């Protein structure tokens, strides 16, 4: 499914009429791929903690899964988990809506998220076989598109920095915006 469409939108567009042959073919393709989607969804569920831990390490967290996290690391871990779960849900139902909605919300919670999500994508895709990478790729692209749109609307102070310049845990990854900055 290279071109992702929301099923509720497609159905709404054809209200009072029949779905197009292309829509019906997509439905069948989705149904036939469901077992693969389900297996990958379960991999995401099983590996979530490991993958997020790797991202936190790349962000400078030196401890293991049991070591305490700073508040900003906890926030980042939570937002990464939300995004990964929404990615999984979108994959499972064949609809980009969850990943669009959750990523947008997560971006508002943590402005340094795009860099961390790029790291998470590299970690996840690097851990999967090629066929599962391919199945997940359109949803990562959707997630990145949401990040790009959100960044264009609300550019973070550090958005021009490279991933190698991500802050260490002793310093918050992003300084908190003031109300005045948020409502410019």
């Amino acid at each position, binding site marked *: 499914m290279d071109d992702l469409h929301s*099923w*509720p939108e497609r*159905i709404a567009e*054809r*209200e*009072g*009429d*029949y*779905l197009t042959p292309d829509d*019906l073919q997509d*439905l*069948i393709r*989705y*149904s*036939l791929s*469901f077992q693969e989607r*389900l297996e990958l*969804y379960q991999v995401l*569920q099983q590996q979530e903690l490991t993958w997020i831990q790797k991202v936190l390490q790349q962000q400078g967290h030196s401890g293991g899964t049991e070591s305490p996290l700073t508040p900003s690391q906890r926030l980042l871990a939570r937002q990464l988990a*939300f995004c990964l*779960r*929404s990615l*999984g*849900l979108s994959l*499972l*139902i064949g*609809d980009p809506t*969850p990943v669009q909605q*959750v990523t947008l919300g997560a971006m508002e919670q943590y402005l340094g998220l795009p860099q961390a999500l790029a790291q998470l994508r590299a970690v996840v895709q690097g851990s999967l076989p090629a066929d599962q990478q391919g199945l997940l790729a359109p949803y990562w692209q959707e997630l990145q598109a949401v990040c790009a749109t959100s960044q264009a609307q609300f550019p973070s102070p550090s958005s021009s920095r490279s991933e190698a310049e991500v802050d260490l845990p002793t310093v918050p990854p992003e300084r908190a915006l003031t109300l005045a900055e948020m409502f410019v």
Partner: protein
Amino acid sequence: MNSRVAELMQQSEGRYLRPDELKTLHAYVEGIPKRVRLYQVLQAKEQELLDRVMEKFQPMMPNLIRQHGHLAWERCRRDLSMVWRYCCMAMLLNDEDYLRDKLLYWLETILKSFKMRDQCQPAYKLMLDSLTYIFGAEESEMIRPYLLLAKSMLVN
């Protein structure tokens, strides 16, 4: 995606689906190819069905044009086609709520306000009776619950 699955998605926001929820989703998705196949048959034979219904309905309503104008039969066929298409979509989605929410509550109000329920009643009975003449057993049985729901809300 039907309303039951949509509800499942909303309830699961921020967490992974539980095994029972995955089972519900799996059962729904597994049925899609069969529903698509039936949907295509129902679509292909819509005109044949409506021709048969209109052919039998018109002699039953000799005064319809005098009562409702020269477009009355055209509008009647258009409305039956609309109901049929919403029923087909509801069957495809396995979702009676879709039919109720998107069409029946609205059309019920229209038919009541124009006092058309009694006049339209035979058309829905004819549609139901015609199913087995036009379609095979499987198609008829899959679409019948939606047509019965439409009939019960619109003209009973």
